[in-house]
């Protein structure tokens, strides 16, 4: 007895030390990240990688879409102009775009100084006598302008119009924009728009949260009458809103489900201390799982924590089994021998399912797998090695609700046909529309609230910022190699514009010609003497004086001494930002993105590009590429899950060595998986990767229930204890996941629906399949 007490003391001390250590570790070093991309698949090819980076961390992910409405057009313009000034002054944005076309002074000076190198149509012929003559004639006409005091200097310094061509090329056509008093306004003048690109990364949620606060404050300061209304959207807004929502829901949902759990446990066991006891392994498991995961990754994703804690929540079943099976007058330690073998088999097979997820390419799913494995394993060990010794001296009473559990199991076994009906319904639906079964949409994996996504789409449409359907990726070992490849594409792109199958395009080479091209242009510039002679010939009969074009000849001579411009000349400017968004540096080179507007015949266009056989050029249909990616990824998980199920069936066959019992275990397991897979379809949802992971949990739950229901029961009391324990487990699990299904975060609600359905049908089918067991033993 003394030895036993000593051992017990040691055990408690050791576990306590572990808990304290883990708690300190978590309190001091827990980092929760909310990178929305963690649950996106990892890319397998260059194009997928570029695509994903564009989706999750590209410059687009830093852009806030802001719309001001509910005011008269004049006041809207005033509010949004002040709003833009406040935002700009905050220093948190690289650019605040309000439809303005003016470039900053610094950029303008660079463009002017390098105009003969950057000229998009630059060629030697621009300096020929006939072209100069035409240029001079045009210049003379410009002198009639009322703003000629300014214009005449441009006429004489840049008669060939190089600067004009540069600006025409790099500035977006302003036809899509409507401006009023310095604000970007919708065509019906009911809304003004701003695009603000943050300095901070789109994935840096803490920084984006501060920026959200900055935006709110800037708007409040600009909105003097308090009548205008601000609409905030864009990827960073999603990220912030999602984090807030997840945090809020994590709190309310976990409070809600905890209350339900406690109520069920109190009802079933009738004592607060026992409920507290039962929750010890779960609390320990969540602590340990969080610690293991954050040690393995350095931080833990918000979704892994929320979803993982929910998955591990099922381990509450373990102590419930133990307590339920303890007969009146026994201690917990005495029932361990009866419960443990079954529990162990259930836990091990469940872990197998999650282990398969370790090998996926999904960083988020791997985290979930590690979290679940470490959580479930520690819950089982804590139940076996901490719980029983903890209350070694304590004698148990008969739990409550045994009668209720008995009759519920009896009644539910009679509605065994419910799950098959759901499955048949699901099958019928799939037969009619097979594509509805599995979701290919990448945005279904995003935890962003759907109403925000819809609002964003509507806003983009009115702003004329339709999401690009196609991009062309141009690869090069160096920036210049890439630019040269883009330059080689220009004839093809121009042909497409002439054919009217393309309205416009944007790429880095439009802003910045390659050094090779700049060098050619510079070498082709006429020398001073030649140029002067040509000017003299070209101005014959025109009133220009002999020295009128001195600025022009001086600048051409100066250009001949210049080096080539590179990207660094535009660093920190609006144009630099534009270049950055069009070029991405990779480990092994540079990728340039070519974006299109009004591409009407993508197949023909792709064919045209292929005919040109350009090396390092990749045309991507974004919608179908992301679908392929998501499909490949989901199929991969589907395949793994199927293999794991077969493996589990094999292990069970070996472990049980009883074909009849094997059958009675497998039918509820498979039945509950099928039912849980079919119900979302009937509710109009397509299965995504989160549903699939939830199905693994369903398999684990089904195994647990079926193994306990089908195990050899020594007598009727034992069987009633089993039914009681499983009734408590199933009702608490179903209730908790039903609460989760109320979440507005798509991911969490999918999980909720799937697991609640799975747990309920696993209980029902296990009870049905093992009702003869019930009869045999109760009559015995």
């Amino acid at each position, binding site marked *: 007895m003394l030895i036993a007490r000593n051992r017990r003391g040691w055990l408690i001390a050791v576990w306590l030390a572990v808990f304290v250590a883990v708690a300190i570790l978590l309190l001091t070093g827990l980092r929760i990240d909310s990178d929305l991309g963690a649950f996106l698949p990892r890319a397998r090819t260059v194009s997928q990688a570029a695509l994903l980076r564009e989706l999750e961390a590209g410059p687009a992910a830093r852009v806030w879409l802001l719309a001001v409405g509910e005011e008269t057009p004049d006041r809207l313009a005033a509010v949004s102009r002040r709003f833009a000034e406040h935002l700009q002054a905050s220093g948190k944005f690289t650019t605040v775009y309000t439809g*303005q*076309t*003016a*470039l900053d*002074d610094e950029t*303008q*000076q660079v*463009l*002017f100084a390098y105009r003969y190198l950057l000229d998009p149509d630059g060629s030697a012929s621009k300096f020929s006598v006939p072209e100069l003559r035409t240029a001079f004639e*045009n210049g003379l*006409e*410009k*002198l*009639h*302008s*009322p*703003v*000629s*005091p*300014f*214009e*005449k*200097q*441009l006429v*004489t*310094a*840049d008669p060939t*119009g190089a*600067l*004009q061509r540069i*600006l*025409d090329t790099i*500035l977006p056509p*302003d036809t899509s924009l409507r*401006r*009023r*008093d*310095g604000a970007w306004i919708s065509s019906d003048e009911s809304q003004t728009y701003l695009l603000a690109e943050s300095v901070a990364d789109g994935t840096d949620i803490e920084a984006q949260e501060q920026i959200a606060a900055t935006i709110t404050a800037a708007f409040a300061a600009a909105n003097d009458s308090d009548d205008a209304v601000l609409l905030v959207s864009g990827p960073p807004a999603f990220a912030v809103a999602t984090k807030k929502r997840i945090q809020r829901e994590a709190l309310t949902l976990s409070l809600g489900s905890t209350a339900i759990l406690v109520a069920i446990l109190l009802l079933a066991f009738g004592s607060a201390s026992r409920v507290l006891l039962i929750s010890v392994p779960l609390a320990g498991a969540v602590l340990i799982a969080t610690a293991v995961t954050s040690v393995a990754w350095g931080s833990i994703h918000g979704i892994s924590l929320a979803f993982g804690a929910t998955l591990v929540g099922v381990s509450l079943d373990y102590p419930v089994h133990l307590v339920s099976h303890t007969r009146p007058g026994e201690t917990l330690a005495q029932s361990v021998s009866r419960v443990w073998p079954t529990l162990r088999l259930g836990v091990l097979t469940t872990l197998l399912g999650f282990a398969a997820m370790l090998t996926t390419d999904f960083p988020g799913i791997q985290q979930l797998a590690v979290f679940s494995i470490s959580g479930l394993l520690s819950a089982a060990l804590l139940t076996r090695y901490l719980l029983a010794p903890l209350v070694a001296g304590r004698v148990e009473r008969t739990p409550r609700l045994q009668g209720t559990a008995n009759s519920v199991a009896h009644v539910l076994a009679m509605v065994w046909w419910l799950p098959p009906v759901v499955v048949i319904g699901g099958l019928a639906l799939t037969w009619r529309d097979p594509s509805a079964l599995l979701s290919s949409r990448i945005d279904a994996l995003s935890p962003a609230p759907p109403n925000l996504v819809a609002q964003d789409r509507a806003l983009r449409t009115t702003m004329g910022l339709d999401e690009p359907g196609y991009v062309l990726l141009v690869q090069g070992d160096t920036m210049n190699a890439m630019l040269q490849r883009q330059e080689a594409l220009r004839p093809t792109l121009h042909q497409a514009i002439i054919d009217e199958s393309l309205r416009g395009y944007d790429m880095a080479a439009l802003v910045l010609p390659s050094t090779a091209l700049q060098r050619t242009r510079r070498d082709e510039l006429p020398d001073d003497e030649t140029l002067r002679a040509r000017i003299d010939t070209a101005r014959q009969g025109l*009133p*220009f*004086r002999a020295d*009128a074009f001195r600025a022009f000849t001086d600048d051409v001579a100066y250009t001949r001494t210049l080096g080539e411009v590179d990207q660094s000349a535009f660093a920190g400017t609006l144009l630099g930002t534009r270049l950055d968004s069009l070029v991405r540096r990779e480990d092994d080179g540079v990728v340039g993105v070519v974006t299109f507007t009004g591409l009407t015949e993508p197949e023909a266009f792709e064919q045209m590009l292929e005919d040109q056989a350009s090396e390092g050029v990749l045309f991507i249909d974004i919608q179908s590429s992301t679908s392929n990616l998501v499909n490949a990824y989901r199929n991969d998980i589907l395949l793994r899950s199927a293999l794991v199920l077969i493996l589990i069936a094999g292990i069970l066959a070996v472990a049980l060595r009883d074909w009849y019992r094997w059958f009675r275990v497998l039918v509820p397991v498979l039945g509950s998986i099928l039912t849980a897979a079919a119900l979302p379809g009937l509710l109009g949802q397509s299965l995504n990767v989160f549903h699939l992971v939830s199905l693994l949990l369903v398999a684990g739950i089904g195994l647990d229930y079926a193994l306990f229901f089908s195990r050899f029961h020594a007598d009727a009391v034992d069987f009633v204890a089993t039914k009681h324990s499983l009734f408590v487990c199933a009702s608490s699990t179903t209730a908790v996941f039903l609460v989760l299904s109320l979440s507005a975060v798509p991911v969490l609600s999918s999980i909720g629906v799937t697991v609640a359905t799975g747990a309920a049908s696993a209980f029902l089918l296990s009870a049905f399949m093992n009702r003869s067991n019930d009869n045999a033993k109760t009559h015995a």
Partner: protein
Amino acid sequence: MISGRRVLALSSFLASFAGSVTCAHDAAGLRVLMESLATVDASRVAYRETKSMDILDSTVEQSGFLAFAAPATVIREIREPVVETYAIVGNAMHVTREGREERIDLDAIPLLRAFIESFRATLSGDVDLLEAHYHVDFSNDGPTWRLGLQPRNRRLAGFIESIEFTGEDIRVDRIRISEANGDWSLMILSPVEQDNSRDVDSP
């Protein structure tokens, strides 16, 4: 696309310049004149302009009509030797030539806006706007007056030395622009006959 964003290229070019200036005047007289100008809701006059530039051997002549409508619309219709219209409406300048219209946002080009306000603020009698952009120097001799403007903006002063309006009562007779490099332009305004104006409205 040739005319494209001509004035925009201009603004880019303007980004590379700078200059400086100072002055003083008769504030009461100015207020009286501006208040009477402010009573005019709309006006339309014919003009003849001569420009002298150091880059040209000869002067550049043009004629047409100038129209003003309160509070903020000024339109210059060039008739000879080219047909072009420059309409300043609110914060934009609409340039129509060869049947095409180009819209220029004046907010985007502060220099141009300051220059244009010299005409618009004078015609609409907005003394505050005028003084925001220019050092104003006013003097009068009975009904005839002279309004001299010198840009406050140093960049603008790098191009424009002064703008001088002369007139009688609420009529502007001449506008002379003296540029920093010695170039100048002189605009002589005269009343429009009734038929001439109708002729202009439907060319």
